[in-house]
């Protein structure tokens, strides 16, 4: 090959590369522009606000990093972060395991009955937070609720549930999981359907039992979806808020005062918009570190 020919090839490659990059960014452009305007700019403003004292009514007052210094010694804040982590430790395994199990279960039955059960499990996901909170307040009412009536059959005395500082957080996790399980099991199901049957047939010929099949085929083949569900539910558990606001307002005795609720209280009850922004950025960093660790451990969920 002459040196001239070599140069042409090189040029060709670079041009192709430019086109490739251009195409990729064109595909990303609509969303990137959207993020830039409706998330990055507001985040930038919030970052600016976090360096100020501002109640939304009077002009902002620049105070440098004082909000961040204050939050280091804000014991209520770190307590709420602790509650959030406990919540995540309850919520994430609960939703992950049950939706995966339900998906595997659904996948093992066939025909109309599968479709029927799918729809039933999915129904809670369609209900709005306000309405679903009202129904669960009904269900868990200490005196007249259905759940206590049910426990009564087994001789268990009436529980306060959302009115008990030891049970309330678990109840919130359970209710939130209840709404989402049907939805996440459908995501798992969609992924399960894509695993070629041939893999199972081959393993069965080797005499593998159901558990081995799950361990050596199903689970590894779900790698991408696993990562998605884990990352998304961890982030969601760190941001739990709506149910807390409607059902417990952080109580009883602060037992459900999760981080975002504390941020919300600071912003919209105390009108400390600067301080609440600072808190939110710290929460963001905590979540970011968690998620990056998860991505690192799982290799970003990309298949080799």
């Amino acid at each position, binding site marked *: 090959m002459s040196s001239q020919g070599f140069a042409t090839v090189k040029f060709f490659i670079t041009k192709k590369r430019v086109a490739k990059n251009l195409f990729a960014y064109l595909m990303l452009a609509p969303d990137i522009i959207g993020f830039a305007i409706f998330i990055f700019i507001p985040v930038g403003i919030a970052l600016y606000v976090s360096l100020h004292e501002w109640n*939304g009514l*009077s002009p902002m007052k620049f105070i440098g990093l004082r909000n961040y210094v204050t939050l280091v010694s804000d014991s209520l804040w770190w307590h709420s972060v602790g509650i959030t982590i406990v919540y995540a430790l309850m919520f994430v395994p609960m939703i992950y395991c049950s939706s995966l199990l339900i998906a595997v279960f659904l996948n093992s039955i066939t025909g109309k009955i599968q479709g029927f059960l799918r729809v039933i499990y999915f129904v809670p996901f369609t209900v709005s937070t306000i309405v679903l909170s009202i129904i669960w307040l009904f269900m868990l*009412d200490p*005196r*007249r609720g259905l759940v206590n009536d049910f426990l009564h059959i087994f001789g268990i005395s009436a529980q306060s549930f959302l009115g008990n500082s030891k049970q309330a957080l678990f109840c919130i996790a359970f209710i939130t999981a209840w709404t989402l399980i049907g939805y996440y099991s459908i995501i798992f199901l969609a992924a399960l359907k894509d695993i070629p049957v041939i893999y199972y047939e081959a393993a069965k010929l080797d005499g593998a039992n159901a558990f081995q099949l799950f361990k050596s085929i199903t689970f590894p083949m779900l790698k991408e979806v696993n990562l998605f569900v884990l990352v998304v539910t961890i982030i969601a558990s760190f941001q739990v808020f709506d149910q807390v606001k409607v059902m417990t307002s952080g*109580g*009883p*005795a*602060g037992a459900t005062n999760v981080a975002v609720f504390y941020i919300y209280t600071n912003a919209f009850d*105390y009108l400390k918009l600067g301080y609440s922004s600072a808190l939110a950025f710290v929460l963001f960093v905590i979540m970011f570190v968690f998620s990056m660790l998860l991505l690192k451990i799982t290799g970003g969920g990309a298949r080799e």
Partner: protein
Amino acid sequence: MKKLLIWVAVLVLSVSMISAISLAADKTKITFWYFHSGAEGEFMAALADKYNKVNPNVEVTAVSIPQADYMGVKLTTAFAGDVGPDVFFMSPGDFLKYANSGIALDLTPYYNEELKADFLPSALDAVTVNGKIVGIPFEIELLGLYYNKDMFAAANVQPPKTWNELIEVTKTLTKGKVAGLLIEPNKGYYQNFIWYPFLWQGGGDIIDVATKKGIFEGPAVENALKLWGDLIKAGAPAKVTIPGTWDLSLLGQGDVAMQICGTWAIAVLEDPENGYSETNIGLVPLPIPDNGKAATDAGGWKFMVNANSKNADAAAKFVMWAFAGDTSLPLEWCTKTKFAYSPRKSVVEAGKDIYSKGLRKVFTDEIYTTAIGEPRYPSEIVDAVGDALQEVMFTNADPKAAAKKANDRINEFLKSFSGSM
């Protein structure tokens, strides 16, 4: 070319002048945000219509906002974005922040001497900051203990007069699915509102306004905290869901034997649609501790006018018309739409007959004179007190330790609070 430019300039100028003139001929627009629902909501919406009818050059638009997010998210974002309403309601917990920030229009010029004399002095004090009147009080809501007479007769007990009796009766009447007593178990501004009378009955208080120091300590505070812990142990539900304890429906249905609730609830009992008339309901003042003196809250939201509004003057005139002018509208609000006391003597005088009808008589004769104005403490203080109460109620915390923790938080907050109290 130069000529052309001049012509263009003239054209632009005249067009803008014409539009300015036509703008002036336009109606003065006022937005008014309310959060009331049901009959109360209808009253507020009608207020705008009525005013528009008598003032053809003004257009008041009444906007309904969901109550749960009215004060918090909705007003905060609106004012932070400089698009706040011209007329709005203000909760006691946010009153000082708005008053100190300059958002609240000084309404002193709109109060003449005669009008000032018509208002109860305590009601005007509650809306006065640095000698300026920045709000309009339009209702006074009092608390009492409602009870089911039939249940009391069946158990052969008398309505409680003291704290000890209250605890005993709660225990006696808590049976099966019926709760002996309903107090507000959820933390928040409303729970504090219900609890303050018990604090005051023994002589306790939260802040010494003169020295700006927390005084949330001592036996009166500890006993009042402990009382609510004891009431939960005696059988008051730890979670009340729907309807909340501000609604008398549970008492009306015979689900509870006693309930601490306010004047407004009488309307619910009397509404024939609810069918509670057959329930035999009585009312007594809140029980007091040994050697204590009777006390109740006199609460209520206030009107405020946006000082940054382009039409602040027109907005102020609208509110003054509604609640500080003729007695007919305030009377309708306080006696027909709901039941509350008016802060204006002339209105109470005009509705004399109604104020002595049925259970209202108990409020008028036995409770009204013991009323103490609801404090306008900022939310941080409401929260510190609320946390102490919650700890004692639900985690068996020592009242003394809980009070101290709250008092420290209050003092910490007061150090950084620069406005007037």
